[in-house]
């Protein structure tokens, strides 16, 4: 009973078929697929580099060297990763409740502003000890970020205002707000930046301890990394081991079921947006206190909040995975400065993202290769 139409056609001896997975893949499989996706992305990126006239292998080696090559650049990578960790944590907690907080950028900037205000207002005198300055700045940064998260959270909870739009718009408001202060009030000689912070408001860096440990000489990794890691661990604990985290997970997975279980969605919407804003704000504080050492728009509003969205997704919203994905992105950002044209790392970043998102498909479907029967 052969179909006559197929007789004259030349066909490959096998064909691909895609079918839904019949069971959950083993535990190692998702990690293996993600790793494979990155390899594929690097190959695709290599093809594009060679089209552009570059040598892909040399480019990749250069990127690797520029990001992980020695302890100095590794430290720089980590410095770049630090704000991303906190911004991604901020996004992840909101996303887990399916609150699409696109405003980590603005909350980050407001956090930087809040922390700076402690120094510049000044709330604390310049000669205050570091051990008082830093905690107060952390609290101020988190509070400012939380306020910036509260606004869209409240609007969403009470009036069902779309948080995507409100958080996005508040990003611009945050930039304008900071610009107002650094132009008008805290300007340093008319430049768009505040004066440099006193030493006490600087987050300690590894290089500060170079006298005791010579190996730390010139390393700029600062306390923000510790803050980020501790925040990630605490957030993991909140999400997976606390009553509140359970409520967040339940609302995120099925708001109807959460309502059915007697969970107050309105209140949680506001609290989660505030937590999200506080984490991003902490990121802003870490950036001004650890890297910029003054309030200035350009280096603070550098898109960490947006990178955080991508990183949160790639880490599948897992706070601990965010640390590692952030370091990868920190490396790509750093490499951007190293190789010319600087579009290449951005392009690789994009290709990796597309490949990782596409690879999700392999978790849900499997590809079957079958022989075509004659």
């Amino acid at each position, binding site marked *: 009973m052969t179909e006559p139409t197929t007789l004259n056609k030349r066909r490959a001896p096998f064909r691909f078929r895609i079918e839904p997975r019949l069971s959950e893949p083993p535990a190692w499989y998702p990690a293996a697929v993600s790793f494979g996706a990155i390899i594929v992305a690097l190959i695709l990126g290599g093809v594009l580099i060679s089209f552009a006239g570059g040598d892909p292998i040399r480019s990749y080696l250069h990127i690797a060297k520029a990001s992980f090559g020695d302890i100095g650049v590794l430290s720089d990578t980590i410095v770049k990763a630090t704000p991303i960790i906190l911004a991604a944590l901020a996004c992840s907690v909101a996303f887990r409740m399916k609150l699409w907080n696109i405003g980590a950028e603005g909350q980050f900037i407001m956090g930087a502003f809040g922390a700076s205000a402690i120094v510049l207002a000044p709330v604390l005198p310049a000669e205050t000890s570091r051990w008082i300055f830093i905690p107060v700045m952390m609290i101020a940064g988190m509070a400012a970020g939380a306020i910036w998260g509260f606004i869209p959270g409240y609007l969403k909870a009470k009036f069902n205002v779309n948080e995507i739009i409100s958080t996005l718009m508040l990003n611009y408001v945050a930039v304008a707000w900071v610009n107002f202060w650094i132009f008008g009030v805290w300007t340093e000689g008319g430049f768009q930046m505040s004066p440099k912070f006193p030493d006490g408001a600087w987050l300690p860096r590894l290089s500060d301890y170079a006298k005791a440990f010579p190996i730390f000489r010139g390393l700029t990794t600062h306390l923000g990394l510790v803050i980020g890691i501790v925040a990630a661990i605490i957030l993991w604990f909140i999400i997976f081991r606390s009553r509140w985290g359970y409520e967040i997970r*339940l609302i995120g997975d*099925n708001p*109807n079921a959460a309502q059915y279980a*007697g969970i107050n969605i309105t209140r949680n919407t506001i609290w989660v947006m505030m937590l999200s804003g506080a984490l991003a704000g902490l990121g802003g504080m870490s950036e001004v206190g650890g890297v910029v050492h003054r309030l200035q728009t350009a280096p603070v509003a550098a898109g960490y909040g947006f990178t955080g969205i991508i990183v949160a997704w790639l880490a599948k919203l897992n706070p601990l995975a965010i640390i590692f994905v952030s370091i990868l992105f920190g490396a790509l950002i750093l490499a951007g400065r190293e190789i010319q044209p600087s579009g290449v790392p951005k392009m690789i970043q994009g290709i990796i993202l597309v490949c990782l998102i596409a690879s999700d498909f392999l978790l849900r479907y499997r590809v079957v290769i079958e022989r075509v029967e004659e």
Partner: protein
Amino acid sequence: MINQTSSMPSSPPQAPLVVEMRGIVKRFPGVLANDHVDFELLHGEIHGLLGENGAGKSTLMNVLAGLYRQEAGTILVKGEPKAFSSPRDAIKAGIGMVHQHFMLVPSQTVTENILLGLDDPRFIMRLPDYNTKIAELGERFGLKVDPRAKIWQLSVGEQQRVEILKMLYRGVDVLIMDEPTAVLAPQEIEGLFVTLRAMIAQGKSVIFISHKLQEVSVIADRVSVLRRGIATASGVPSKGVSRQELARLMVGRDVIFALDKKPGRPQDVVLEVTDVHAESDKGLPALRGISLNVRAGEIVGVAGVAGNGQSELSQVISGMRRCAQGQVLLNGDKISNRNTLFGIQHGMAYVPEDRTHVGSAPNLSVTDNVIMKNFRKPPISKNGLLDMKAATKHANELKLAYDIIVPTVSTPVRLLSGGNLQRVILAREISGLPAFMVAVQPTRGLDVGAIEGVHRLLLAQREAGAAVLLVSEELEELLSLCDRVYVIYEGKIMGEVMIGDDEPDEGAALSLSKGLVDTIGQMMTGTPLDQIQKEGVAAHD
């Protein structure tokens, strides 16, 4: 597995074969829905396809209707092998399916819906011509429906007729009906059966999918039975097989139809609903002055055709919907228009109609799902921290006590079968030792064995002194479990009937329940009880 086909009486087919399915295999994630199933349809017969939910009936027929593609096996239509890659191909071969969920455009007329997707007419649509054509077609098969009516104006029964007309208009010879009676009132079911008989009289063949034994033995000429994807009977004449035998083929063991229901000892009123008015999601009045009460130690039923306000009623009681007027008291406390938490804290359990969208969080684990109601209290949580060890222990205890079949309690519940998921929900709700429980369609979509388990759990609640409000569309279920039944129609209570639990001799019980079914059936279609009684008296005079 033992092949029980051989033990069944089989007669040589007289009429020619219209459809022949051989060795059909179809898999879904986690299940083998059809495992080498054979199926034969004769010309001019109504073929009942029986099986529990999840047995693979709909899957098999979706393969025949071109919606799914089988992994192995062949389909022959009138002796010719066919490979369908879409429902369009199947219709071309003369096979059409009416799905459980209708696929109609509410804002368009009957005629427009029937013409939708056809190439004819190509450019200019002269609707009046088609209206008459469709009206004629409807008349031929006893499918009365106004071709100019918009779909949203039609009752569910009428919409079903439109779906059947759609297929007849496309000239199908084989009509597959997937659980057609699930949405119909008893009187409408009669009408459907008349239509189906008219169709076979005119040379069509019908496949009637159902999990209701009674219906199949009434309407079908021959019966095939599926159990867990395997055909346990194919093409058995329905006259030669008893209901018990069919049930055994469906379930794989004898089903006890009688439940051990002890005489009721109703105590104080626990739930008091007074003159409740509420709107549906669409903002239309769904409840129009509902009053009812439930006492401790009794099961009170709410009967009605789907969509007459049952869902809204249960939502108002559980606190998930606001009522515009009236109030709900639970042990004297007002619970209406407060949050769901208040009800939970005052001993209310709620088994919602929609297991996946309301009753559970699909991507969370069994453990996370069973602690939904008690996660606020020790031992599950202390000082705001979850004790995962205690939660896992709790989940494992429930898994054992309620026979939840799952590899580990960390499995996400989306991987559970309908029956297992329902056991998870019931385990959660019952383990909280509720004073009052509202259960909506707790057995819908479950297999016969699981239904029995749910019934036993509900009766155990009654014996433990809980008040139970059972909303169901299965009259049989209500009659066998309830002490009283309210009938709801368009948001109003049509009447209340008592169901005696002392069983007189079998014949009397049967005629009694026959009378009850008739009365309830009339109320379900909108006749208030006092009117029925008046007419009954008039008839006697």
